[in-house]
């Protein structure tokens, strides 16, 4: 099980790892002049080809040879490879000798960060941006600008980064680089000719892009003589090495065998190793101004090496830390429960281990009468939830039930007290004055033809139109304020199906609003099943009640007595279904002397019974919970058009 929590398959070979000749000799880590460095990231909408473009860069700069090459080299986690998406940012140091133009022949060191495109991982992108001076904004030349193109562009601009607009996938027959160059130029305020055109697949245009990166992005600036200051932009747990911390040096120099100090806590650590990723770890002697690399201190918990913290040298510490990052706030919550209750301690250990790698994951123990002991977990979004769940199941061999995702509510009671609700079953029972729910600013990009359909969907989800812009003659940007709760329930699926897959969505939390919300309970044989309680808008309560009750009726096997299923708001029943009592449960056939077969059948039934959860006197199979809790919204589908 130990290896189970080593998702990042970077190998850390040790002494035998000399700097490969391709990392040109004049530019050893720690000895590279800042003027020779360019730090940039690749940002884009999901699937527009960031990781594929990164592959070509790895090849062109010869840090990965043809033999080792594989598609999306930097997507190292199994789950990334299977889903074909990037979840974690990856930074790589590459040498580049300019091929054309004034500086032809000059050697440079490029630190490239490949970022995720999915909205759930925007946090990863913002951390990466803080380590760079420039961003390559990639746009699929067959799709044009999409919602995360905008979101990531704005993030980059907020970070004061220089942007190189690039159209990708120009090899595609359906590519319309001219058209989208126009769109893109309009968006960032440049000329269409300023948009570079590349194919991450064939490599066309990529050398020119690398030259332009050197030409357009400014080198890092910092005070080489000042006390060292480096920004932690990622922190990852590796089973063999402990915590591997990724830093970008701002001032001074961090040298091997020095003791480093975390400025937020004052904690001092031995520096066991320092180096760069290229794209495998390469041990070095130090890192200087503007350089990006990793360090290992032997700490076992990423929380001791927090993203956003500033690293300095203990013997000559800096006075002031660099500005940090805000911790990501969970957007959705869900209860995770082991199907086999005895696996609860395993689940706790597994969450602890994943947390080492994922600062955005939050969890607290909770108990459910229906599901037993588990954890209320906070996630950045549905994809994040799904990925964590899948990793828990796969890497730690756990069978889990997850409750329907919900957002956080703030409830004001008439007695003046206030409660924060992350689990609907903990909704206060006292007299409620006001309920607030989180809202997001949602941006939907859609072809002209589907504006009506998108508006209809958003209105049905209690959205308020905030603005509408034409990005080009046929592409529209719609801005809405929407309750977050409405987005996490099958919104994306609906959006995709109503726009034939052409619309894209981005959203960011903007605050809260007071809403007319009620808690709907589902009662099985008179007992509320906490796992099915939901907080919904008053007008949707009836619908929710009817849907869940009908679903459960189809999923719960008949019992020896009649079982009513009711949906209720407080004591008011709003929907009812009945599971009729089972009348026959006996195998009546002549098996002759084959008693073995009969016994095995009974043994199987006994096993089945063990997998039942008791809700009062009602036996509910795990499968029923799982099926009833699964929404039609499969977050896996967020790949959209694929």
């Amino acid at each position, binding site marked *: 099980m130990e290896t189970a929590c080593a998702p990042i398959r970077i190998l850390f070979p040790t002494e035998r790892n000399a700097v490969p000749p391709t990392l040109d000799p004049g530019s050893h880590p720690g000895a590279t002049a800042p003027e020779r460095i360019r730090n940039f990231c690749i940002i884009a909408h999901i699937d527009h080809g960031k990781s594929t473009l990164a592959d070509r860069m790895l090849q062109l700069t010869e840090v990965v040879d043809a033999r080792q090459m594989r598609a999306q080299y930097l997507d190292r986690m199994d789950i990334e490879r299977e889903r074909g998406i990037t979840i974690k940012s990856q930074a790589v140091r590459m040498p580049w000798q300019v091929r054309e133009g004034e500086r032809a022949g000059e050697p440079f060191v490029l630190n490239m960060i490949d970022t995720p495109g999915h909205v759930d991982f925007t946090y990863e992108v913002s951390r990466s941006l803080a380590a760079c001076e420039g961003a390559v904004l990639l746009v699929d030349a067959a799709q044009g600008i999409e919602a995360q193109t905008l979101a990531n562009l704005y993030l980059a601009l907020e970070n004061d980064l220089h942007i190189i607009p690039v159209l990708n996938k120009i090899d595609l027959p359906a590519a319309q680089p001219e058209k989208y160059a126009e769109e893109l130029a309009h968006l960032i305020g440049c000329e269409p000719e300023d948009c570079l055109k590349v194919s991450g697949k064939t490599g066309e245009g990529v050398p020119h892009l690398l030259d332009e990166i050197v030409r357009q992005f400014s080198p890092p600036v910092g005070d080489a003589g000042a006390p060292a200051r480096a920004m932690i932009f990622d922190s990852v747990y590796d089973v063999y090495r402990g915590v591997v911390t990724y830093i970008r040096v701002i001032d001074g120099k961090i040298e091997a065998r020095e003791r480093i100090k975390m400025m937020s806590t004052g904690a001092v650590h031995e520096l066991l190793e320092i180096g760069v990723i290229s794209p495998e770890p390469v041990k070095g002697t130090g890192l200087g101004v503007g350089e990006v690399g990793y360090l290992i201190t032997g700490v076992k918990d990423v929380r001791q090496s927090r993203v956003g913290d500033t690293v300095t040298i203990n013997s000559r510490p800096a006075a002031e830390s660099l500005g940090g990052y805000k911790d990501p706030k969970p957007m959705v919550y869900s209860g995770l429960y082991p199907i086999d209750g005895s696996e609860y301690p395993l689940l706790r250990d597994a969450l602890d281990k994943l947390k080492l790698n994922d600062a955005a994951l939050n969890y607290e123990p909770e108990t459910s009468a229906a599901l037993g002991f588990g954890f209320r977990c906070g996630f950045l979004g549905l994809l994040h939830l799904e990925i964590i769940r899948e990793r828990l199941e796969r890497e730690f061999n756990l069978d889990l039930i997850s409750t329907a995702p919900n957002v956080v509510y703030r409830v004001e009671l008439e007695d003046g007290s206030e409660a924060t609700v992350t689990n609907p079953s903990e909704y206060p029972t006292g007299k409620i004055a006001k309920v607030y729910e989180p809202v997001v600013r949602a941006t939907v990009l859609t072809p002209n033809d589907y504006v009506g359909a998108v508006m209809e969907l958003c209105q049905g989800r209690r959205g308020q139109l905030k603005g509408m812009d034409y990005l080009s003659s046929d592409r529209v940007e719609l801005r809405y304020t929407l309750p977050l709760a409405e987005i996490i329930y099958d919104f994306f699926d609906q959006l995709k199906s109503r726009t034939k897959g052409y619309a894209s969505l981005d959203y960011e939390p903007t605050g809260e609003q007071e809403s007319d919300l009620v808690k709907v309970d589902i009662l099985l044989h008179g007992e509320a099943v906490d796992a099915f309680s939901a907080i919904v808008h008053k007008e949707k309560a009836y619908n929710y009640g009817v849907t869940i009750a009908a679903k459960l009726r189809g999923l719960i096997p008949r019992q*020896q007595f009649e079982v009513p299923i009711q949906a209720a708001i407080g004591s008011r029943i709003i929907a009812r279904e009945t599971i009729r009592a*089972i009348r026959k449960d006996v195998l*009546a056939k002549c098996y002759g*002397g084959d*008693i*073995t077969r009969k*016994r095995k059948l009974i043994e199987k039934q006994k096993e089945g*019974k*063990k997998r039942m959860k008791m809700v009062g006197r009602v036996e509910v199979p795990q499968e029923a919970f799982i099926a009833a809790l699964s929404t039609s919204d499969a977050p896996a589908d967020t790949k959209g058009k694929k």
Partner: protein
Amino acid sequence: MPGALPSGEPVPATGPVPPGTPAGEHGFGVYAHVPFCASRCGYCDFNTYTPDEAGRDGYVDQVLAELRRAASVVTPRRVDTVFVGGGTPTLLAPSELGRILAEIDRTWGLADGAEITTEANPESVDPSSLRELRAAGFTRISLGMQSAAPHVLKVLERRHTPGRAVSAALEARDAGFDHVNLDLIYGTPGERPEDFAASLDAVVAAGVDHVSAYALIVEDGTRLATAMRKGVLPYPDDDVAADRYLAAERALTAAGFSWYEVSNWARDDAARCRHNLLYWAGGDWWGLGPGAHSHVGGVRWWNVRHPSAYARAVADGWPAVGRETLTADERHTEDVMLRVRLRDGLPLEHLDEAGRKEALRQAEAGLLDPAKLEAGRVVLTLRGRLLADGVVRDLLTAT
């Protein structure tokens, strides 16, 4: 397609049990399987073969070879019951079946008053063959009637007319059989309540002293299962099956039968099938023939299924291909599973503390007879009989 054999451990070359294994302390039975049918009924997954699928030449000699081998490892004092089942045993000549009986008698000795049953298909017997069977030593005959409704027999793909089963039963009585059974299947698609009522009337009128009524089970791999999967026939409905069972109980009780096992009714104690009771009480028996199952002293084993494989096996060794030595847990499961279904019930002391508590709960829920429970027996009520698997499950999983 015959259903699969269980998977067990391999059988040692020296045989399924070592020589001298004590057998038959609480009675000993012999089962002989005749794996042949004229055609396969659409619902049937028994180990049986039509003439195109397997030849019958030398079959009885092969069974006798196995019997002689059996005698080298177990030596029960005597044989209390013999059951020749199928398939359709009566596809063999009465004299052939008689040879098997005679050899059992010579080998182990048939007890005085032994119960000797053969199964038979209604269309494969006539008054003279029945007299010959009786003369050969058979005391009991079990006929597969299934239904009195022609359209039901058609769905089941039975070859006989409804009347034939009743006549065969009457002829068997005339031939001097002590006990005659008719099998019924209920819940077949297309069977109406009045069809089953007519079947019950018919078995009562046939004057038999034993009736087995089975709910139609859709077994994987049968033509019936295929038809249902394709939607050609609807799946059986549990509520309908429950109604049919209650109808059977009502009609048979009114006619003077009483249940003694969930699917079996007898006119009096003497009419109960002793061979089946031996199975259900954990007794010892040797099963002869392809696919036959045996049990001796906590070891269960089973023979190779196909008749030609069986023929090869008995030529120079044991036909048994798998066996299991029951653990204490498995014995307990079987004990509860089998005895709870009997009218005599399960002695309460066979259950642990939690099981006994559960039994009390079930009596309260109307599934077990409270008076019998008070007297130390776990006995199903009528409603409990319909939910017997649930009762067994709950007794076994109570904690």
